């Protein structure tokens, strides 16, 4: 059964150049032509969410994600088109809507729970649970203004999750807070999923979207780019395809290069006699598109463009990879990989093929150099290039180490088996 249906949805905002907020201004402004710009926040959006399904919405900042969520929540009205929700909607756009700093924790819970659509009896029954879950038993009758912001968020969150939603709209505001809180949010989300709640989830955290969402909608500048299987949509978002998205990557690359040139002058990080010059370095993803963002564990190609001003024999190209903090993670060169080059002249490029990016997440810096057989540099670009890796797994750290667990239990040893079951590792 369909839970949410969005048909031909458009949303425009009028952005006045000078805003008339008083009657006087309106009267005197009657004869002047209205002076405003039309901003298209959403254009021709169509999708349906089935009952029990989780839809992720991703896109750059300003792509219309939150506007779309607000329209589904009935907070904003569509300019044209139709949004039909066939079930009760519970929006989690912000935690603690309507909190009054002069009322006590218990009073605020009652108001907030009522706003979230809970019934009076239900609230009275759950009040103690909520306070306990937030870990605020001692502060039940303390005024909210004496709470730290962390305590307020905890209070709001433990109230909000007591609601019994049919359709849950979740904005990324929930992603604020520390690691533990984020984990709690995700746990609640997966519990709701198990209970068959329909979820619409807006986030920049692609890892979370990948984990929770059956399908995903990618928005770009208010337009529906692609709707479909989460893995495909995330690939499309990260690597881009078609014409629009790669352009922005190019720009990004260019600006990075400009930046690096400025950097190079004061740091003198480019050195060498420039008999061979490195003219550019580009990163290519698994679809052979140029980009600066990669999914972890995906293949990647680094293309190094050079220009040899004279005939050079036996040059050695090398790269070194650094973390954002400047730790050297890896380095290799053509000699070490037995890819000897007899001689070079003129322009060309060489490629370094990486089968699988082992990094999990972060920004990585790349040094590219070309030098003689005995380490005399022709050209050396120190940490001039960078790319981002976006996590696709739940493991943490900088790198993935290929590994697997093996549980060894002696069948006769009863106590051991009990221990392992209790830890929830595995049965048998």
């Amino acid at each position, binding site marked *: 059964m369909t839970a949410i249906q969005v048909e031909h949805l458009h949303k425009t905002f009028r952005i006045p150049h000078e805003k008339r907020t008083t009657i006087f201004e309106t009267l005197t402004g009657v004869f002047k032509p209205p002076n405003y710009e039309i901003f298209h926040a959403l254009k021709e959006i169509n999708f349906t969410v089935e009952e029990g399904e989780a839809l992720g919405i991703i896109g750059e900042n300003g792509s219309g994600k939150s506007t779309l969520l607000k329209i589904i929540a009935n907070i904003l009205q569509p300019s044209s088109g139709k949004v039909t929700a066939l079930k009760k909607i519970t929006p989690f756009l912000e935690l603690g809507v309507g909190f009054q700093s002069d009322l006590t924790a218990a*009073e605020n819970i009652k*108001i907030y729970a009522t*706003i979230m659509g809970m019934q*009076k009896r239900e609230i009275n029954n759950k009040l103690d649970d909520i306070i306990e879950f937030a870990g605020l038993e001692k502060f039940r009758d303390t005024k909210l203004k004496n709470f730290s912001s962390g305590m307020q968020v905890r209070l709001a969150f433990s109230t909000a999750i007591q609601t019994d939603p049919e359709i849950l709209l979740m904005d990324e505001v929930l992603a604020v807070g520390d690691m533990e809180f984020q984990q709690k949010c995700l746990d609640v989300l997966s519990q709701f999923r198990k209970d068959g709640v329909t979820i619409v989830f807006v986030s920049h955290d692609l890892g979370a979207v990948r984990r929770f969402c059956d399908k995903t909608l990618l928005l770009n500048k208010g337009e529906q780019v692609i709707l479909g299987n989460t893995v495909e949509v995330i690939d499309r978002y990260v690597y881009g395809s078609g014409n629009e998205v790669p352009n922005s990557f190019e720009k990004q690359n260019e600006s990075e290069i400009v930046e690096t040139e400025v950097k190079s002058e004061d740091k003198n990080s480019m050195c060498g006699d420039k008999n061979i010059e490195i003219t550019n370095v580009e990163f290519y993803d698994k679809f052979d598109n140029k980009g600066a963002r990669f999914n972890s564990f995906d293949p990647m190609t680094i293309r190094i463009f050079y220009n040899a001003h004279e005939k050079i024999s036996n040059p050695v190209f090398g790269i070194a990879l650094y973390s954002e903090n400047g730790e050297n993670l890896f380095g290799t060169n053509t000699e070490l990989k037995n890819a000897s080059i007899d001689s070079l002249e003129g322009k060309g490029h060489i490629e370094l093929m990486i089968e699988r990016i082992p990094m999990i997440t972060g920004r990585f810096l790349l040094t590219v150099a070309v030098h003689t057989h005995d380490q005399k540099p022709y050209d050396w670009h120190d940490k001039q290039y960078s790319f981002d890796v976006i996590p696709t797994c739940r493991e943490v750290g900088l790198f993935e180490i290929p590994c697997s667990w093996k549980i060894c239990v002696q069948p006769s040893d009863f106590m051991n088996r009990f221990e392992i079951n209790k830890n929830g590792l595995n049965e048998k």
Partner: protein
Amino acid sequence: MIFRHLKELYDYRNLIWQLAWSEFKLRYKNSILGYFWSLLEPLLMLLVLYTVFSNLMKIKVEYYQLFLFIGIILWGFLSRATTSGMFSIVGKPGMVKKIYFPRDIFIISSCITALLMSIFESLVFVMFMIYFRVPISINLAFAPLILLFLFIISLGLSLALSALHVFYRDVQFIWQVLLQVGFYLTPILYTIDIFPKDLQRFVLLNPIARVIISARDTIIYSSPAKMEDLLFMLLSSIAFLLVGYIIFSKLEPRFAEEI
């Protein structure tokens, strides 16, 4: 359509009450005398007006203290309900932009808060009644009906004002001036008899004038409300509510964008 909306409001009755009650509690939370301010304010006003009008202007009306007090309380309710109702959308941008429920809930609950405060004030009025040994009669039964009309008129005004206030911020100043003028044009300080007969008809076009006059008749003077007055109040409260609601629902869809 209207019935569906009423049903929706009924489902939200808990929220309406929670908002109204918390607002009422908040009003006096940080003051030492607390709720007594609520009593002190009309009493001080009564004292000043009574001194001025009974001594200087020699107004001779039976139970003039009560006559004055009932006018002050009822006009006070209208003024408080419309003023706080006017700010009930503009003053809650967080709620309007982050969550949805029928937005007239804000206005209804702020009118209820005003009602709670006025009921509280009338406790003093009851004490006055007892002190002056005012006889009461069966005609007192009209009073709740009259107060209901006043509530509906205030609600209609608040709906219109709150919606207009989102778009035009000078509505608040205009309304304060109108309330001031209205206070003197309504027979609160004086009886309607001071006007010649022709003029009285114009004064009685103001439904609040009829509310105050018939409230006095039924509560203080033990006489029944006039049929004509009741009918006029009924029709005007329906008209106020209808017009207010139409203005409100026309402007409501753009609230979240404009605040």
